[in-house]
């Protein structure tokens, strides 16, 4: 799997310590290493999670239906300190819905990390949908300097018409607050 070297967390650029492992990579998992494992491994390799700080990553294509059908899996997922949503193409917007559902419907409070092929110009929407960490992975991932520039796009908008995972609430409610 493609790995990220840097990530934006809490609005700042830093080294990205997590290693993304896919199904095949699971054998290489080391107990002490911070790793993001495929969500299915919560069941198939549950021992890997014991007492370690492991996160999982979801393929945006499989997430919601699978979680609806498998409550146990869902509960274990929600206990992970980090959930990564992997964007296979930046034009595939399913991850935005998955993120909102995790935050707003399942009450996930850990770190929601975007990985994969999303782009800088999506950051403000990603933030609104509940992501708070961003580790773009690509053949040529952005440098730390470039990522620092990306941060400028996180607040492209300062007012919002509609509610989202950021709890902004719909503007029609705001409009009546003051008067």
């Amino acid at each position, binding site marked *: 799997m493609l790995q990220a070297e840097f990530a934006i967390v809490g609005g700042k650029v830093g080294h990205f310590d997590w290693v993304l492992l896919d199904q095949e990579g699971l054998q290489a998992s080391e107990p002490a290493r911070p790793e993001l494992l495929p969500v299915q491994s919560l069941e198939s390799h549950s021992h890997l999670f014991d007492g370690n700080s492991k996160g999982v990553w979801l393929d945006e294509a499989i997430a919601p239906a699978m979680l609806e059908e498998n409550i146990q899996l869902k509960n274990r997922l929600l206990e992970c300190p980090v959930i990564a949503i992997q964007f296979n193409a930046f034009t595939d917007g*399913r991850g935005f819905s998955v993120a909102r559902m995790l935050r707003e419907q399942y009450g996930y409070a850990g770190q929601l990390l975007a990985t994969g092929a999303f782009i800088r110009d999506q950051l403000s*929407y990603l933030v609104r949908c509940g992501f708070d960490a961003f580790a773009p992975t690509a053949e040529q991932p952005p440098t730390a300097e470039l990522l620092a520039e990306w941060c400028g796009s996180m607040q492209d908008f300062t007012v919002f018409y*509609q509610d989202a995972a950021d709890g902004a609430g*719909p503007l029609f409610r705001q409009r009546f607050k003051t008067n």
Partner: protein
Amino acid sequence: MYVYDDYDRKLVTERVAQFRDQTSRFLAGQLAEEEYLPLRLQNGLYIQRHAPMLRIAVPYGLINSRQLRRLARITRDYDKNYAHFTTRQNLQLNWPKLEKVPDILAELAEVEMHAVQTSGNCIRNTTTDPFAGVAQDEIGDPRPYCELIRQWSTFHPEFAFLPRKFKIAVSGSETDRAAIQVHDIGLQLARRDNQTGFRVFVGGGLGRTPVIASEINSFLPEKHLLSYLEAIVRVYNLLGRRDNKYKARIKILVRAMGPEKFAEKVNAEWEKTRDGVQQLTPEAIEWAHDFFTDPDYRAYNREQSDAELALLANDNKAFARWLERNTVPHKKPGYRAVTLSTKPTGVPPGDVTDSQLEAIADLAEQFSFGEARITHEQNAVLSDVAQESLFSLWEAARAKGFATPNIGTLTDIICCPGGDYCALANAKSIPVAEAIQQRFDDMDYLYDLGDLSLNISGCMNACGHHHVGNIGILGVDKKGEEYYQIQLGGDSGNDSKLGKVLGPSFFREDVPDVIEKILDLYIEKRQPEELFADTYHRIGHAPFKERIYAAG
């Protein structure tokens, strides 16, 4: 009309800044072409056959004189002195320069306009009845809901990368003039037990696979409007196909799942959010309605005003015709709504020059409280004209080329830009419209034919809505040559129907002859007062087919 407050202004300004930055990064080679593509599309910017095209949003078709004047100026300063009204009540510029687009957007923002989400795989401009708020058959004014939907869908963070474009239309009257059944979501305003709500249709659409929408909710109380829409779009975003562009619209998903199953999914999703913050408060609904209150109508006596008008019409046949075809009754006594035809013979349907835009602005100010509407049929409407001013308006409109009394007739053609502009076209559509207008320019003949819709698309994307024209013409490509397929029997109102293909396609030169034969047969077969669509459905497809393809 909706008036921006500081929030709205801030949002559009921030959007202009965002797009300016994106465009300069693109021009500097820092933003890849394929990454810039959806960003520019969501700002209305296409790259067309000859030049970029900018589609400017006219929310639910409503526009004021100040905005029209600004648009006129923009066409002069940044384009070739004309613009084009689209079938989704928007306005297109055909020749802007890419690097100038941020400046155009900034100019638009000054008059509370933008090009947000007029293209791309997101929720597009919501459309409605051009006679909203003034129609006699209105159940309720759809515009406040259109505005609430506009705000909810604008910069919706979850729905900017849908499988495909997404279009919503709202009808507030008994007769559907917004073609809601051929939209991704169609909302029909309804009342039940003193409550206002909506019948909700999903999965309609034209294009390659035309489908009439299915009703999935027979009464959605108004306060749930946004949460329900959000549930529909979320289900679509998660489950709509992304592997094949031609199978990505919601209609395909609804068809594959079946409307009942789809409705179940939507309801399950909606249950989780229906009582949340998206629920419209009574204040919010009232607030939205307050933007669309009646203008300062004068009190007229209906009988007296109607009688005076009839007298005028009696004396002047040309005026009488225009009155009959281009104006409709109004909910207020002594008023009518007037359609300014953009379709005199020889002008591409929907095209307006800079001076015509200014003329509409002037006429709106002089005769209709400073507002106009752009219609699905690509004309402009002045919705509130006092009957006593109609004659002066008619004269003024005539001077500007807007008074061709052909509204609703054969030559009020809906036509996409086609091969003259559009990179996707299989064939030109504008010259076909022109040839038909030229052939059938005898007004007596047109009136005798009565209501008849003729729609032309230059390819199967169906921007000209050919499937739902009583007569539909589709440009097709056969080994690099342009041909035209003809369909009959389509309809876009309450009783929406898709036309049926007549048979093998025709050369462009032959299209007017074929149309003439179709009309001849109608005239032979019709019963008194019977419209073309009714005759067609009564006698069926076969006689038409036979007449057209009979030897010789």
